[in-house]
């Protein structure tokens, strides 16, 4: 078995990864209901105390789980998400005027992130037509049908949880912890991966790589420290 090396300098410490997290940046935090979120890096962002973040996340996590920690800590000025119903504090901050929230239907949000990662500036969809989601968005007629124009999303930094990374950053995910992660991994200038396991180059079957390492900038060793909503509820 080949030995793990660091020939691309991507394997870094958590402290080094945190150098990319600064006031005012736009950050994507992967995961859904906290599954697929890096609790460890979220906790580090909370600890660093950066402010005025624009956070892009499918949901706000669950109370005490996932991105909710940095929202509750009032480190975000804006959240782009599809659902915040599981985290009442997020809704309160919105009502108190302390947090701007841009809602996007979940599939549209996923596609906006996908578009950001594949070099497409926007796309047409009929989801949300005739609803509040359409407000302020141009209508486009194509082949006699009307659509709304949705724009791509990109971020300065994406925080990704992966099951496995190799030295180059080729990533493999686990079951429903895949979620939006492969798309956020492509849609940021700096992609930081919290990998449960870091393995030598060549030890992941190329057929199994979901995110090619070209998209990945920083890999940190996972902390093995997880919490899940359904465990907290017990």
């Amino acid at each position: 078995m080949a030995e793990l090396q660091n020939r691309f300098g991507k394997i870094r410490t958590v402290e080094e990864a945190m150098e990319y997290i600064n006031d005012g940046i736009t950050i994507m935090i992967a995961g859904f209901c906290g599954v697929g979120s890096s609790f460890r890096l979220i906790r580090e962002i909370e600890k660093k105390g950066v402010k005025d973040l624009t956070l892009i996340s499918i949901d706000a996590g669950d109370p005490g789980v996932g991105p909710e920690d940095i929202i509750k800590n009032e480190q975000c000025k804006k959240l782009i998400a599809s659902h915040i119903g599981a985290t009442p504090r997020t809704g309160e901050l919105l009502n108190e005027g302390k947090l701007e929230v841009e809602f996007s239907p979940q599939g549209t949000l996923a596609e906006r992130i996908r578009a950001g990662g594949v070099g497409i500036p926007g796309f047409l969809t009929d989801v949300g037509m005739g609803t509040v989601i359409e407000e302020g968005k141009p209508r486009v007629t194509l082949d006699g049908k009307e659509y709304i124009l949705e724009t791509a999303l990109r971020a300065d930094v994406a925080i990704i949880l992966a099951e496995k990374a190799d030295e180059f950053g080729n990533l493999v995910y686990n079951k429903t912890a895949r979620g939006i992660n492969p798309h956020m991994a492509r849609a940021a200038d700096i992609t930081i991966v919290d990998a449960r396991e870091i393995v030598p180059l060549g030890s992941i079957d190329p057929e199994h790589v979901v995110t090619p390492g070209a998209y990945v900038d920083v890999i940190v060793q996972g902390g093995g420290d997880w919490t899940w909503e359904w465990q907290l509820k017990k």
Partner: protein
Amino acid sequence: MGMAVKEMMAKRAAEEIENGNVVNLGFGIPQKVVNYIPEGMLVFLHAENGILGAGPMPAEGQEDKELIDSGGVPITMSQGASLFDSADSFALVRSGQLDITVLGALEVAENGDLANWMVPGGLIPGMGGAMDLARHAKEVIAVTMHTDKKGNPKLKKRCDLPLTALSCVSLIITDIGVVKVEDGGFVLTELFEGHTVEEAIEKTGADLKIADNVRIINYDAE
């Protein structure tokens, strides 16, 4: 003691599902529908986060920490399940592969407009995947009480609450019976035992046509 009304509604919704269907079940009563899919029927349950073929909840202690449905609940995988990312999950919906979605409703209009994601004035939860599902499932079934807690009709001429999608609902299953959305109007086709046509008309906030042969559903007698 007969079958609880919400169970009857779930059971009736399950009658719409056919072998091989790809189905997404929303929160609340729709989640109960899975319990009434007949044994031996193979149905592929879709969850927005990225699975087709979601299986029942695992036994306590057998949960996989990275295998959940769209409600954050631990699930298992059925035989023939597939895993994919969340953009692909909605690609499946948007491209028309989802046969049926069963959703809760706050209001349904006689033209099939659905409002089910927010009530102004409170905390705004966000729509999650409801707009995508309602717009693009081949069949949208709304499962809802016929009136709200104050007795106001939830089946109306027009929705007053913020909309989820336009003209999408084709079938409504309530605690009174079954209402089809046909040619821009409500048609009562079935009644649960103990309810009457007059009651259905009175509790509906729009014109309600009555089908020629109204089926009386009595699951307790079956």
